């Protein structure tokens, strides 16, 4: 054994040491999202659930609603849950699986690792969206053929882009929670509270309190972003302002706090 070691240890030519480029870190971080069984199936489940959702629409959608927008809306629900999970786990696993000990010593600049993770997460989100649109289109064509309805394409490119933006924002909320909490379970629970529980509470509050009814679009990030996913609607300037304000309070500020914590947090 030791003779092999002696022969092999010094064979790599001394390269001119350059700073590790961000592109390479991003490529590795992207690979790390796929290279475990759980990571692989999480990403595969985007394709699987999209297909299932499209199948559901074909089988059960009422006659007049077998349109492309119905497919796109149906596919949104599984994907909006899975995508943020991918983003959360890509960050939290460095702490909960303690791989950060290796990652942060091979690249001793956590900001660069987090940036690379953000880029790869957004790349996956966009790829997932392209896939979802494709599955939706396929479903639309198949549905029209099977059920004998007319083929309806009722989504414009701008609306598709809104939809993608909405998805990327959901994913970034997950990413933010991963950075802020750095524990898989904690971040996932927080994501569900933020995405499903809080909007319900805000909704109840808005329906009982007039003052909050007026305030809700400026406070409730889900409410503010709802317009991104409604296909027959063009966003007004005020609605963009709602998205921007809630985005700053629920996404940017906590993300900045999270980043400050990540820089000093110890990987045990």
């Amino acid at each position, binding site marked *: 054994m030791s003779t092999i070691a002696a022969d*092999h240890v010094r064979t790599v030519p001394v390269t001119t040491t350059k700073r590790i480029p961000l592109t390479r870190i991003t490529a590795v971080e992207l690979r790390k999202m796929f*290279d475990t069984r759980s990571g692989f199936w999480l990403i595969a489940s985007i394709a699987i659930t999209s297909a299932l959702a499209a199948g559901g629409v074909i089988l059960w959608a009422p006659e007049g609603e077998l349109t492309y927008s119905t497919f796109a809306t149906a596919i949104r629900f599984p994907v909006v849950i899975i995508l943020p999970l991918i983003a959360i786990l890509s960050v939290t696993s460095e702490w909960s699986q303690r791989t950060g000990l290796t990652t942060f010593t091979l690249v001793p600049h956590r900001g660069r690792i987090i940036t690379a993770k953000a880029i790869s997460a957004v790349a996956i989100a966009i790829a997932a969206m392209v896939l979802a649109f494709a599955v939706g289109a396929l479903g639309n064509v198949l549905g029209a053929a099977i059920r004998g309805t007319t083929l309806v394409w009722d989504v414009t490119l701008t609306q598709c882009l809104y939809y993608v933006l909405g998805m990327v924002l959901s994913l970034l909320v997950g990413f933010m929670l991963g950075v802020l909490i750095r524990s898989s379970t904690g971040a996932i629970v927080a994501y569900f509270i933020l995405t499903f529980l809080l909007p319900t509470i805000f909704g109840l509050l808005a329906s009982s309190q007039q003052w909050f009814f007026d305030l809700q679009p400026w406070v409730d990030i889900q409410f503010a972003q709802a317009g991104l996913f409604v296909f027959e609607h063009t966003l007004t300037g005020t609605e963009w302002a709602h998205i921007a304000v809630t985005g700053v309070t629920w996404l940017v500020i906590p993300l900045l706090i999270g980043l400050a914590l990540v820089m000093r947090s*110890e990987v045990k």
Partner: protein
Amino acid sequence: MIAIEGLTKKYGTTLAVDDVTFTAEAGRVTGFLGPNGAGKSTTLRIMVGLTRPDTGSATISGRRYVDLPNPGLDVGVLLDASAQHAGRTGREILTLAQQYMGIPRSRVEEMLEVVSLTPAEASRRVGDYSLGMRQRLGIATALIGDPEVLILDEPANGLDPAGIRWMRDLLRGYADRGGTVLLSSHLLHEIEVIADDIVMIGLGRIVSMGTKTALLHEAGTVVRAVDLLALELALAASGLTAAPADGGVLYTDADAALVGRVALDAGIALTELRAATGAGLEEMFLELTAATQREGAPA
């Protein structure tokens, strides 16, 4: 070469690392010895930029670790072999390191061979690995960038005797080719077997350091004579304290040459004269361990 200067780190009110200064020289294996919780791991973590010190500095070949452009090519680090994603295969973990560093892909298989992980083992998930296999994989990850400096925290943990011997030969070879090796251990024997230099730490402070030979020499002298009492009296007359020890010998702090001279002058025939191997080091280490012992003293 690794240079540590005045390193201090406090966690709350606990002083984990207290003004630690030492160097690990190129071409030598430096053993960082101390009981559990003595501050070894914290010191190593500070060296590789994972933990920020309150004061002091750690440099590797004159540069701070975080300033190294591609640290894996200069410093091989193994802090905790178990800190790996259980769902990745051994080969995948090595591949990730290879890709971060941007070195040829062939290094992965080469390293698997160096640490004797078979292709079948490399394809298994790390969750199914024994601690010894994880250590081998960790050492492969540290070596893959062909670094000049190795920093290993408790690398012998979980290795069987053959594995420890293998690692000793590997590190010896590395140091002989000019590399710097710093390894920590809480086992005196491990360090004694592998290291050239020893830095002993307890409760965050350095309690002793030097070359292994010097530290062992410091341990004193064991001497035996036919007339043990006459020898003890002769030593006492020369101002040397000596005490009878197990096995009909005298133990003294004095240098062997001095003891021999005293015996010659007194005309006492010696039957044995040697350095007390490791006894002093072990004594000191046991004291350290006792001071931080959690269990009560045995009844």
